[in-house]
């Protein structure tokens, strides 16, 4: 991959004594969509907050468009903010409650001193493009439906025409019939605006429908990263396989899934297990796994996996 838009190199993030992200590396090619999956406590949220420069990393580096973005300040930080936007998990909570939607959409322009008269027609186009009627402009966030609030959040993230869009659980809490709408919209916008996307979701189906590549996080570490077609169809890491088999899939006629559910729960990042952090829950764990932390290896199809006994041979 030449000249990625975002490259994250051995990024670690601690909250006090607790490591939330441990030496995560990945690169995001221009126009690509990377899905980040993992359970609560896997460090997904910390990772994207660090990637957007909202929390300073403890170690490692972040490069956006070739330039180091750790410790950016003032004008440079503002320029980066303009280029990297985010859709929040709880859309209604991410909209300032006392402002009208009109002001919420104008806010990004005001912050970046873009003349409103010039840019407003573009905002109205965007509003229609995300499927909102003009009537919402004079409403407050609590007066619109959850699906509409999400569309406002999407429009707001795109007002500044960013290059990188981070979507944090874009379909969480949505009904099935609306979930498809939002995924379709995001895919359409990604194409239309040539966006590079980082999509965080616990819903593997949503990631499958959107992502070119997938990164699987467990306890702040990358356990597997590779093309979505490979990782989500033939997982190489036992955790990825367990995650794919865990949630009951809609499969009329068929009863419970073949792979037994994973035992135990995600351990506390405060006291991570020795060796491979997944070994206490792994059905394939050997003595080696409890003693030695696996080194990431690259498989023939290009994916990277951190496992002593991957389900596929290198």
């Amino acid at each position, binding site marked *: 991959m030449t000249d990625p838009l975002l490259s994250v190199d051995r990024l670690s993030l601690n909250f006090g004594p607790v490591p939330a992200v441990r030496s995560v590396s990945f690169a995001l090619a221009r126009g690509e969509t990377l899905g980040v999956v993992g359970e609560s406590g896997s460090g997904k949220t910390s990772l994207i907050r660090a990637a957007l420069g909202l929390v300073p990393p403890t170690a490692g580096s972040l490069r956006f468009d070739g330039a180091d973005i750790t410790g950016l300040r003032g004008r440079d930080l503002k320029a980066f903010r303009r280029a990297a936007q985010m859709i929040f998990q709880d859309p209604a909570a991410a909209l300032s409650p006392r402002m009208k939607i009109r002001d919420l959409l104008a806010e990004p322009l005001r912050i970046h001193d873009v003349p409103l008269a010039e840019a407003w027609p573009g905002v109205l186009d965007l509003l229609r493009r995300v499927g909102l009627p003009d009537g919402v402009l004079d409403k407050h966030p609590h007066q619109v439906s959850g699906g509409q609030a999400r569309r406002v959040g999407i429009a707001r993230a795109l007002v500044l025409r960013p290059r990188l869009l981070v979507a944090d659980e874009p379909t969480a809490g949505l009904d099935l019939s609306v979930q498809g709408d939002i995924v379709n919209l995001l895919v359409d916008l990604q194409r239309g605006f040539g966006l590079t996307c980082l999509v965080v979701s616990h819903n593997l189906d949503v990631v499958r429908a959107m992502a070119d590549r997938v990164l699987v996080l467990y306890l702040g570490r990358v356990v597997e990263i590779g093309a979505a077609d490979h990782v989500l169809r033939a997982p190489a890491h036992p955790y990825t396989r367990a995650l794919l088999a865990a949630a009951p*899939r809609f499969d009329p006629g068929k009863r419970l899934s073949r792979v037994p559910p994973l035992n135990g729960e995600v351990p506390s990042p405060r006291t991570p297990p020795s060796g491979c952090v997944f070994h206490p829950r792994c059905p394939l764990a050997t003595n080696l796994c409890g003693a030695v932390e696996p080194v990431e290896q690259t498989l023939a199809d290009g994916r990277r996996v951190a496992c002593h006994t991957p389900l596929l041979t290198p």
Partner: protein
Amino acid sequence: MTRPTQDADPLIAIRDLSVSFATSAGPAEVLRNVTLDLGRGRIVGLVGESGSGKSTLASAITRLLPANLSRLDGGILYEGRDLLAEPEAAVAALRGSRFAMIFQDPMGALNPVFRVGTQLVDLQRAKAPKASRRDRMARAVAMLTRVGIPDAARRIRDYPHQFSGGMRQRIMIAAALLCEPDLLIADEPTTALDPTIEGQIVALIDELRHGFQGTILLISHSLGLVSHLCDDVAVLYAGALVERGPAAAVLGAPRHPYTRALLACEIGADVVRRATLATIPGDAPDPTRLPPGCVFAPRCSQAIDSCRDAVPELRPVDGDGGHAAACLLV
């Protein structure tokens, strides 16, 4: 295990249940003429999107309806009594002894200031008033072990906040089973859980059902969960029961256009990246201004003029197999 598909003597028979709430925009019709049997020993899945009235249906059975209730009509028959005609106190006495509930948020249902053991001992009072505290404690430990709490004898002395979300949901299940209820209502029991934990809870419910004599009403928006666990499925849309029947029939060969459209929205394992996903155009109707005729007609791709004239009756679609749909076109 083979169970009769159509129960001649259901545990609970809901008849023409209508529920409305008073709102500032006028009465909101949350349930309209719902008729549904909950068969003995069966797991009945109640499927619907937000605002479909599925939680209200459960609240109507247990009479935990909010204060702005403005209309409650029809009947809920249980053991020869109409629960809606009984005084509230009589129905309240059934909660915790004959009806038990599991919620999405177990923390909200467990009292944070009491030890788990104390709560599990106290709730057995209704069922076994004569049993000693020691016996009840022993039953509680045994039940916690059964639902998969490791080291239950020691952990029973812990407080709810000392358990993880998945463990709390197991405790709620143990609490419900200790009541030996006739009806267990599980309202979105896995929605707040991570997928691997959800998988564990699903496996647990699937395992426990064999030792459980009662009926389970499983309310969920997750078709995966319902298809894995349920014997029967009922589909609600905007307060109307649009389709019901054996799970394999309703989910395998759905007849109502809404059920079909909803199932099509589920993203399959074989989805093509960036392909357009199926959706249901339009929005669910405002419960204070329901459309005339079939409530789904405004969004239905097959709707004809007569769909807007009269509310369709639930009609059998497969003879006497129990599969019925409320659509003019079937």
